[in-house]
């Protein structure tokens, strides 16, 4: 029995408290809403659910698009909380829940591989992880951040079921998987390879004596099949949407797909910042991970995720994903790689603490804090600035007065402030900040993303804007808001006229006189009412069921633990075996 606090595991409650203390104030300040790329997008989606829970057809973007193209659970929870605290605060609350759940998830996942003490260190490090700070405060990827912990929480149940046919594990694992898929399906798809395969491998290694590998694999496959069917049903409207309209648009460039070594800013953004001090631990992760048979599956998972996270730096993602390489963004894989490395890093921390005590504690704490500090500092130092903090009040006010909402509008140079306009304006736009739902030919025929940021996509972007403006009368596109004078010549030559100016000329409003009021654009992407019903009930139901199961069917308390000291005296080290008793 260890006595010194440096030789004891950190209690889970303390880790939760740590997550709340570190991220609580930052999220209370609603930092992601002004610093991140996607936070306003998630609020926009949530706002639609808050007003039209059972109708996923959202007319505010792309002259109408279906929100069934994006799993709804995170947005629906924001919508629910928004009735109590308002949309922006609800977003911060759900994001905070995600960060806390992530720490718990890392702890539970690490317990599969390493001791309780090492797991607690891994969980504590997850609070300060650069990738987490990057995804929460810079990328604003709420869905990845919320689904990853749910998935991590499901994996130990998957392990239990596969290894020892634990029925309760099967039930809880499945429900958590369904909830995770309801938040973000992409995380689940890649997670099944990067996280689940190592766990199956581990279950085979840890199988009870006399049990065959085939039995373990059969149970794992059974789990996967049932989980797949469940995901298929819960997200049925999504599959219908994706089958009806597969993503066939011309690929849109993204920096995470480039060779990071050719651009220091990209390298910093997608490597140094997300990994932070973890980079120093990488040699040890490989060394320790290779040294033990039980950790090898984890190491392989980490390595593959690490290579994916490097984007176009290596040819591996292109080989594996083929054409999908041009659609995916790769920053999310750095989170996966970091999460897969954390159990081994926890183990490393455990040995350092044993050997160097307070010095190691100070060093590790400083490294963790520095990692997060650099990630937060990068928000200010980075050359990639978002426009999410742009004041759009005057734009919203214009659109909501004098019947201006009878027409559609377009913003140019608003970047990711567009969702902020769309959330609070009654009028509809032909643009949108969500690439997968773009079906208008004026957008899909060109290799550019949002019209509002068209100039960054060069000729493709400007041609896309041109095509849209050419069809302005068809879409009832009368008003264009400009936050970058670059776009003004095209508008002037196309017949738009400047009618109002806001914020000392930083935002101008342009109008074309002969545009008729907008009419609904017919689309075969409109979901049937029954799809709206499913969408409004099953994903939320899966999360409520997960909460109920967590409350009504508590896990058994771990009985014993056998941990071998690091470094082990001789032979192959065993770090934790049958850790869950």
């Amino acid at each position, binding site marked *: 029995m260890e006595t010194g606090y440096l030789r004891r595991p950190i209690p889970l409650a303390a880790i939760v408290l740590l997550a709340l203390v570190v991220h609580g104030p930052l999220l209370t300040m609603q930092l992601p809403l002004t610093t991140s790329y996607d936070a306003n997008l998630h609020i926009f989606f949530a706002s639609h659910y808050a007003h039209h829970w059972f109708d996923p057809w959202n007319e505010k973007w792309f002259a109408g698009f279906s929100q069934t193209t994006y799993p709804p659970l995170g947005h629906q929870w924001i919508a629910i909380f928004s009735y109590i605290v308002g949309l922006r605060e609800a977003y911060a609350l759900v994001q905070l829940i995600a960060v806390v759940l992530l720490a718990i998830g890392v702890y539970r996942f690490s317990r599969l591989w390493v001791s309780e003490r090492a797991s607690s260190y891994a969980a504590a490090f997850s609070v300060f992880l650069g990738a987490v700070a990057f995804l929460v405060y810079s990328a604003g990827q709420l869905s990845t951040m919320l689904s990853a912990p749910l998935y991590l929480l499901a994996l130990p149940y998957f392990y239990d079921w596969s290894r020892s046919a634990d029925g309760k594990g099967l039930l809880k694992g499945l429900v958590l998987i369904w909830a995770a898929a309801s938040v973000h399906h992409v995380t689940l798809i890649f997670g099944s390879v990067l996280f689940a395969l190592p766990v199956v491998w581990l279950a085979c290694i840890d199988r009870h004596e006399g049990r065959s590998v085939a039995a373990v694999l059969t149970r794992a496959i059974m789990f996967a099949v049932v989980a797949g069917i469940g995901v298929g049903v819960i997200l049925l409207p999504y599959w219908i949407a994706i089958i009806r309209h597969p993503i066939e648009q011309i690929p849109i460039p993204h920096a995470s797909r480039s*060779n990071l*070594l*050719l651009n220091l800013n990209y390298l910093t953004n997608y490597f140094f910042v997300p990994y932070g001090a973890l980079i120093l631990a990488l040699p040890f992760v*490989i*060394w320790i991970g*290779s*040294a*033990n048979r039980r950790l*090898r599956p984890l*190491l392989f998972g980490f*390595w593959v995720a*690490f*290579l994916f996270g*490097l984007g*176009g*730096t*290596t*040819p*591996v993602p292109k080989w594996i994903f083929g054409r999908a390489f041009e659609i995916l963004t790769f920053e999310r894989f750095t989170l996966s790689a970091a999460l897969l490395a954390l159990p081994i890093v926890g183990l490393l921390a455990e040995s350092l603490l044993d050997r160097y005590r307070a010095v190691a504690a100070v060093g590790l704490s400083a490294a963790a804090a520095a990692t997060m500090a650099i990630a937060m500092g990068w928000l200010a130092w980075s050359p990639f600035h978002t426009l999410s903090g742009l004041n759009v009040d005057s734009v919203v006010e214009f659109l909501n007065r*004098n019947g201006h909402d009878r027409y559609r509008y377009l913003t140019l140079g608003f970047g990711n402030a567009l969702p902020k306009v769309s959330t609070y304006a009654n009028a509809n736009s032909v643009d949108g900040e969500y690439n997968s739902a773009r079906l208008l030919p004026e957008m899909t025929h060109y290799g550019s993303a949002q019209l509002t940021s068209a*100039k960054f996509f*060069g*000729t493709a*972007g*400007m*041609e896309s804007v*041109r095509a849209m*403006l*050419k*069809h*302005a*009368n*068809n879409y009832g596109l009368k008003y264009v808001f400009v936050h970058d*004078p*670059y*776009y*003004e*010549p*095209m508008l*002037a*030559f*196309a*017949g738009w*006229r*400047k*009618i109002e100016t806001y914020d000392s000329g930083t935002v101008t409003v342009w109008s*074309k*006189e*002969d545009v008729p009021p907008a009419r609904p654009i017919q689309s075969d992407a409109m979901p049937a009412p029954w799809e709206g019903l499913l969408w409004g009930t099953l994903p939320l139901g899966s999360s409520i069921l997960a909460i109920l199961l967590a409350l009504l069917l508590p896990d058994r308390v771990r009985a014993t633990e056998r941990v071998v000291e690091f470094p082990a005296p001789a032979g*192959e080290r065993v770090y934790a075996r049958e850790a869950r008793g």
Partner: protein
Amino acid sequence: MKHFLPFLITIATVVLVLLGWVQSGVVARERMRSSRTPDEAARLLLSQVQARKWDFAHTLLANTGEVEKAAFVRDVAGSNGSLLTYASLEKFDVWPLHNNGREATVRVKLHYSTAVGPLDDVRDLQVEHQGETWRVRWPTTTIAKVAPQVIPVNYLRWDVINRNAEDDWGVQNVDSPQVRILSMNALQRPDRIVILGEIVNEDTIPAYINVGATLLRPDGSPIAQETSFDKISHVLLPKQVSPYRIDFPGIKLDQVKSVRMDAKAMLVPASADPVIEVNRQKLETDALGKKVLRGDLVNQSGQIVNIPHVLAAYYDANGKVIWVSDGYVDQELQPQIPVAFAVDVPDDVAPKVHNYHVVVNHYDINNAS
């Protein structure tokens, strides 16, 4: 295994990174830096222009001493709010024309992405062999300057006061201007149908105009609807005539029974200035062997015109409009200083052209509304 695996993973990672490095074209780029051929010298210079590294690009010139850096930058990146200031060099093609070992000529085609759409510029560059490398000799151009003077302008301007929304229904509004489509001609081009013609403002006040066309099937249902977009001068002064062109990509004329034209006219504030003279208009053949209508634009007012846009209507011997082409001029129009322009004429149309009419549209930064 436990010693072998870390090395395997490390080596595999390094190999994969190196593979990625090679695939990214880094090696090819490094080779280009040596400028061992005229082609490589031109590519190196243009790659620096593309990256907007003006200082380095200027040092690469063979005649650095003769060409001021400011003049070089103005030449490749524009000035005074001209179209080039709204442009970025997206890509370029280089091909050799002539090489005698000491001097060479290369032709470069610059593909710009601009605020009004793509813009291509073809230039012939002289390249010299200096020591081990080749360097581009940049043409020295003297910038014409206008003598200080006062240009009197009788400022003609129309302002509009519309009725208030609160006014009683009967309170009269000012009527929309009267405009008339003078001619309309539907042509089948290889990849599209083109509707073109001219429109006149018959009124005594300026008109904002837009021309739209709807192609109809034999049963009267619409096939497609398009507008003239920027292939028209949207603001027409009284009695002014503008060509228009409406393109319908991907549609064949035999699918069309009739065309419904729609000319919309609105009353807008406008100014009669600037007056732009179009001089020395001639149909010629350019360096690439294409037919072009060339000329000079002269801004007769005292204010800079930032982006001029040339619209030309071509008539056959019967006075019928047989083609309308347009082009943006990448230089600004300083007062009184001629600036050359050239707009394409399709090879099959050029022999039938008997006459032409050029209209100049413009964008001014300080007067965009």
